[in-house]
C-alpha cells in the first residue's frame, strides 16, 4: 500500500475530503431527522473545504503569496455558520408548529 507509506501529500487530503463528502451525502440521503441532515451538510461542506486547502499547498503555487484556497475555506466556514444558524431556526420553528422535526412530515407546500 504505497499510498499509506507515502508522506502526507495532496492525495491524502483529497482522499479524506472525498470520504467526508460521501459520508455527508449518505447522511443527508438517509436521515429523516432535520438535525441529521444539517450534520450531513456540514460534512459535505467540510469535505469540499479540504479540497481547497489541499490545492492551496505551496507546491502548486508560484512566487506569489497564494492564499486563495485558504480564503475560500474561511469564507465557506463563515457561510456554513450562517447557514446553520438559519437552518436551526427553521428547524426550531418547524418543531414549535408541528412538534416534530421529521422532514418527511414537512409536506404542506407540496404541489
Amino acid at each position, binding site marked *: 500500500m504505497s499510498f499509506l507509506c507515502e508522506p502526507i501529500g495532496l492525495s491524502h487530503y483529497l482522499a479524506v475530503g472525498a470520504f467526508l463528502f460521501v459520508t455527508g451525502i449518505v447522511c443527508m*440521503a438517509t436521515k429523516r431527522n432535520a438535525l441529521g441532515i444539517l450534520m450531513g451538510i456540514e460534512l459535505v461542506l467540510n469535505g469540499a473545504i479540504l479540497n481547497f486547502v489541499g490545492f492551496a499547498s505551496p507546491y502548486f503555487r508560484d512566487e506569489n503569496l497564494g492564499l486563495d484556497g485558504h480564503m475560500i475555506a474561511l469564507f465557506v466556514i463563515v457561510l456554513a455558520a450562517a447557514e446553520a444558524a438559519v437552518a436551526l431556526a427553521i428547524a426550531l420553528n418547524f418543531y414549535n408548529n408541528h412538534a416534530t422535526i421529521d*422532514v*418527511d412530515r414537512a409536506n404542506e407546500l*407540496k404541489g
Partner: protein
Amino acid sequence: MEVFLPYLPSLLAAAVLLPLVSFCVILLFAMQLGRRGKGAAAVATIAILASTVLSFFSAAVWFSANPPGAVHHVAETEDAGHEDAHAAEAHATDEHHGIPHEVPPVLVGEGYTLARFAGAEVTINYYIDALTIVMFCLVTFIATCIHFYSTGYMHDELHDVVDHEALLANGDSVERPGRFARFFQALSLFCFSMLGLVISGNFLMTFVFWELVGLCSWFLIGFYVERQSASTAANKAFIVNRVGDFGMLIGLMTLWASLGTFNYGELSADSPGVFQQVRSEKNAYQLQVPDGMVQLSAASRIEELALTASEPLSREQLSKEVAAAIPAWRNGTTEGDTTRYGYTLLIIAGIGIFCGCVGKSAQFPLHVWLPDAMEGPTPVSALVHSATMVAAGVFLVARSYPIFLPEVLLTIAVVGCITLFLGATIAMVATDIKRVLAYSTVSQLGYMMLALGVGGWAAGVMHLVTHACFKSLLFLCSGSVIHAVHTNEMPQMGGLLRKMPWTAYTMLIGCLAIAGIGLPSIFGLSIGLSGYYSKDAILEQIYAFRMMNPAWGNVFFAAAAGGATLTAFYMFRMWYLTFAGEPRSAKKFEHAHESPRVMVVPLVLLAILAVVVAWPIYGWVGLPTLASSVEEARPAGIWQDMPGVYLNVTMPEESKGHAPEVKGPVGLIAFGAAIGGILLASVFYLWKSLDPEDVRRTFNPIYRLLVGKWFFDEIYQAVFVKGTLAIASCIAMFDRRVIDAFLDCLAWLMVRIARLSDTWLDRRGIDGLVNWCSLQTWRLGDRMRGLQTGGLRQYVMLIVVSTVALFVLLSFWTYSLAR
C-alpha cells in the same frame, strides 16, 4: 392752456377709461356697494362726472390751441422723436384752382400695436379733431345728466320688483330682485364704448367700439328681460344691426385690401392713412381714387403689361411702368379702354361703411328696430337710443366723409330723405309717448343723413349735437311723465300741466327746439333755439343743392320742408295730448306728481342746453360757438363742388348754403313750416276747432297705413323671417330625409359588420388562440407538478446520481469518443 396740449390724448384717454373702471368696479364689487348695489349709482356717476370735467378741460385746451375761425398759417413742424405725429395744419393757396383752403387741425398718434403684417399694421390709435372734442363734451355731459336722472328714475330697482308687464305661464306677475347695480354697470360700459368710438383713430377700432355700443344697447333694451316684448326687442335690435354691420365689414375689407391700412390719419410720412390716400396733398385734397384701389381693380391690366413686355421686366421696372399707367387707368383715358379702374371699388367701400351707419342710425330700410328699442328704461332711450348711440352712424358718416364719392353721397341723401319722411309720418299717429319720440328720432336722423348727403357736413354734425340735447331732454321729460302716471299711452294723460309744471315747461322748450323755432334774420341777427340753427343750416344746404341739381333737389327740399312742418305738428300734438286740456283718466291724474329733484335738475340743465347750445353770440366774446367748432373739423378738400361720374349730380360746397339768396327764402320757409306745424297741432288738439276723428275717417286708408307703420314689420316678417323659416324647414327636411337616412344606413351596416367580426374573428379566432395557449401551459404545469415530491432525501439522491452520471458521461466522452 396750450401747455397742456401734449397731454391732450392722455386726458381724453382718461376720460374714456374712467367709465370702464366704474364698470369693472360695479361688476366685481356690486354686492359690497350697499343694499342691492345702491352705491353703484354713485360710482358710475362720479366716473362720468370726472370724464365730463376732463372733456371740458380738454375742449378748453384744444380751442385755446386751435381757436376756431382763426386762420391756420403755421405749418407745424414734425416733432421728431415724439410719438404723436401732428398732422400739419397748413393754410395754403392752391395754385390750380386759386381757392384758399384750410386743413383742419388734427392730432393723431399711436397707442399700441396689436398686430404687424408685411407692410400693414393694426394699431390702437387716436384721431382727435374738433369733432372728437365736441362729441366728447356732448356725450359726457348728457350722460352725466342721465346718470343723475337714473338715480331717481331707477329707484324701484333698489327693492324686490313685481313686474306687472311680465307674466308667468299661470298669469301671475314676475317677482324678481331689483337690478339697480346692473343698470349702472351697463350704462358705464356704454359710456366707455361710446367715448372709445369717438376717439378711435382707425376703422378697426371704430368697428370694435361700434359693436360694443351695440352690445350695451342689447343689454339695456333687454333690461326688463322677463318681459317677452323687451327680450324680443333687444334681439331684434341686435339682429337688424348685424345686417348693417355685414355691409360695413364689406366696406372695411375693401379698404383694407386695397389701401393696406385702417388708419384715418397719417401717423408718419411713410404710412399715409386712408384720408391721405384718398385726398392727397399733392392733388389739392381733391377726392381721387387712390393708387392702391386702381391697382387692385386693374390687376388684369398689370398682368397684360408684364406679359406683353418685349423682355422680362424686373419688379422695379414693372412697378415703375404701373405707376406711369395709373393716372390713365384711373381716369379711363387708356386707348381702347374707358373703364375708370377703382372707381367702383371706392363706391363699394363708401356704401359698405354707410350700410353700417344705416343699421346703427336706424335709417330706412333698417329703421324698424329703434321704435321697439323703447322697451328699455327711459333714461336708456334718452342716452342710447336718441342722443348718442344712434347718432354714432351719423358720426361715422361725418368721420369717413373724405372717402365718399358723389354717388355714395347721393345714396346717403336718398336714404336720409326716405327715412325722415317715414319717421315723421308715423310719429303723427303714434299714441305711445315714447314711440312718438322714437319715430321723431328716426326722422331727425334722416335729416342729418340728408344734410351730409347733400354736402352739408357742418350742418349735419351740428344737427347731431343739437338733436342730442333736445331729444335727450324730451325723452327724460317723457320718462318723468311715465314715472308719474305709469303708462305710456297719451290718450290716458292730459292736463298734467297743473300737476307737473317743471316737466311740462322743460318739455315745451324741447318741443320748440326740435321744431326749430326762431326769428329769421330780419334785423341782421337771427335768434332762436338750438334746433333753429341746425335745421336752417340743413335746409339752406338742401336749397343750395337744389340750385345745382333741380331734379333731386326739389324732392329733397320738399321732403325736408314738409318734414319740418310734420315735426312741429307731432311734437306739439304730443305736448297738447299730455299736458294740455282736461285729464282723460281721472285715476291716473290723481296719482300723478312732480318728479323728485334729482330728476328735475337734469331736465332744467338739458333745457338750458337745448336753448343755448347753438347760439352764435359766444363768438363775440371770443369763445368757440358750436358752428365754428364744428366747422373747424370740416375735412380737408370739401370746399369745392364735387361732380359725380356715373350720376349727373354735383355736390355743392357748404359755403354756398350761406349765400344771401339762399338764406333769405329758406329762413322764411323754415319759419313758416315750423309755425304752420304748431298752428295745425293747436287747431286739432288745443282749440279743438277741428276734430282729429273726422280727419281720421276721411283719410282712413292713409291713417291705417301710418298706424301700421307702413307695414314694414309685416313685410319683413313675410319676406325675411317667413322666407328664412321656409328655407330652413326645407333644409331640415332634406337633412332628415336624405342625410340622416344615409347616415342611418351606414350605421346599420357598421353594426352588422361589427357583429360578424365579433362572432367569427374575435371570439373564435383571437380568443380561441389565447385560450388554447393558456390551456396547454396549464396542462404542462399540471404534469410537471408530479416531479416536485417534496422528499428531501429523494432530491439529494437525484443530485448525487445525476452528478455521478454526468461524471461518467463526461469521462466517457473525454476518453473514448473525443479521441
